[in-house]
């Protein structure tokens, strides 16, 4: 019907008797408050006056620099290995693909501390792989900055893989076929056609992985310990500062909050407008 009747349009704005029921409204507002109040508290109790001094202390800068370095390196590692892994999961069919996919997603739900223990057993000095690294190359991973990167990669890469795999599945595989008929090998088609097409998904996955790596605590402290300047990232610094210098902990937390908000702002088109 194309007759322009106004009544239904007005009714859609607010149908009589169709308000939000209290049984839903009350818990919804409680939930919202529960999520917001701690953040507000952080802002209220922040030592604003001493903040410049807190944030310019070398300890804070060391932790922040280390955090950014390790999270970015972990994200880069996740991209290098995770994008091909996502392609493998989305575009090929091999026996046990479902199982591999489940194993890839396991670190998403695994408590990070368990991940740290597992990393120690694998890459520790006496670990399954680590003993050979030590014996053959003299490489020791636990309690080093490299260890931090590995722990962060372990927990962050699944986020990237899942995000990129979803984008790949949504992307039309016939573009790769079109590339093939033009003479592109599978790897050329991936590089010149698929990769640009899924770039937004890769970017979103990378930001997600980076944020996860930045906040990583459990696996890092288990596998790499907490040595200032070497393995003490921001979250570890916050936790330790809280015990003897709460004001410093709050200042550090504010920095992480600011970073998180920046990440969210960067992702808003992808995540916040999704209905």
């Amino acid at each position, binding site marked *: 019907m194309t007759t322009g009747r106004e009544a239904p349009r007005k009714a859609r704005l607010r149908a009589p008797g169709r308000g939000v029921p209290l049984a839903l409204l009350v818990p919804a507002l409680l939930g919202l408050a529960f999520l917001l109040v701690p953040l507000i508290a952080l802002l209220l109790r922040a030592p604003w006056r001493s903040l410049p001094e807190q944030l310019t202390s070398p300890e804070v800068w060391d932790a922040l620099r280390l955090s950014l370095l390790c999270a970015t390196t972990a994200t880069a590692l996740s991209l290098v290995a995770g994008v091909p892994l996502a392609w493998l999961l989305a575009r090929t069919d091999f026996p046990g693909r479902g199982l591999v996919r489940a194993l890839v997603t396991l670190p998403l739900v695994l408590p990070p501390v368990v991940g740290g223990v597992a990393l120690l057993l694998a890459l520790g000095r006496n670990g399954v792989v680590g003993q050979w690294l030590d014996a053959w190359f003299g490489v020791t991973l636990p309690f080093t900055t490299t260890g931090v990167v590995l722990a962060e990669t372990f927990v962050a890469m699944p986020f990237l893989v899942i995000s990129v795999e979803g984008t790949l599945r949504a992307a039309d595989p016939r573009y790769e076929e079109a590339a093939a*008929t033009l003479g592109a090998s599978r790897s050329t088609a991936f590089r010149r056609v698929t990769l640009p097409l899924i770039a937004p998904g890769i970017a979103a996955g990378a930001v997600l992985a980076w944020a996860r790596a930045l906040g990583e605590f459990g696996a890092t402290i288990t596998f790499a310990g907490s040595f200032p300047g070497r393995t003490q990232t921001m979250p570890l610094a916050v936790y330790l500062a809280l015990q003897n210098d709460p004001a410093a902990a709050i200042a550090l937390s504010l920095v992480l909050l600011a970073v998180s908000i920046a990440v969210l702002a960067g992702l808003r088109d992808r995540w916040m407008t999704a209905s």
Partner: protein
Amino acid sequence: MTGIEKDSEHVPDPAGAAEGLDARLVVDRGSFHLDVALAAAPGDVVALLGPNGAGKTTALRALAGLTPLSTGHLRLDGVDLRRTPPESRPVGVVFQDYLLFPHLTALDNVAFGPRCRGAGRTEARARAAEWLDRMGLAEHADAKPRRLSGGQSQRVALARALATHPRLLLLDEPLAALDARTRLEVRARLRRHLAAFEAVAVLVTHDPLDAMVLADRLVVVERGRIVQEGTPSDIARHPRTEYIAQLVGLNLYRGQAEGHTVRLDAGPAVSTTEDLSGPAFVAFPPDAVTLYRERPAGSSARNLWRCEVAGLETHGNRIRAELTGELALAADLTAVAAAELDLRPGAPAWAAVKATQTHAYPA
């Protein structure tokens, strides 16, 4: 519809020649079975015509190497392509919705093939610019596909496929994505490009007009098999299945001929001018049918059947009546005649066809 007359009636026979396409495409996929033999000489344009789901696109994908052959053979210019991956086949494809790479400009889309086949960036872009120019798209070289109209996209897709100098050009429903107005213009343009193309072109379509305008030879595919092949005019005159008869707008029946009579498998007999014996087809166009409300007394038509109106629809400026009864047939009449006869679904009618209006040919 009489189709487009082509002066050359010859059907090439490249079986012995090394040049061109010689294929038998067999694809088994569960309940679907495709078995289609295709042969064409360089310069030929062959149309695979058939209803949706007939297997036309599967045949095209098999030619391109995107769908593996279960069995059969595939030779292009004497080279066996069965084990050749798609990227190494000298085959160009224009996909139904073109599949232009959305992140590349028109120029880079066309340059993609030459680049992949070893040309340097500058050379590939120069060649692409040449192709776009030939397609009349020089000023759109820097446009991204989303900025191009349907007709322009189709030309970019054609340029992209041709830029690799394929020995076999495949077009999947090349005009299906276009609106009626653009279609006319693009069809004429595509016909010129295909006529100028020196290697084999195979196009897939479900539109008989596209097939007849663009192709020298039609291969009609139904349920994975070839039911008829020949020149457009040949197929338009002598349809061999219900589907083709409907496509070209003919009533078609199968029966046993005995002199000037064909006794139809469906029941009644049809008088014809041809003198035949054995299995035969009889065809007549819907506008050869005259309808009467009462049994006509003085009609000279020897073919007279008692029918009932099953449905009516407008067909151009005519009314097409679908009739059932002694013989199921379609009849075209003017709106005035339909009104005078008071034709309604369920109304009885007598249908008459003169013998001179029928056409019988061996089955």
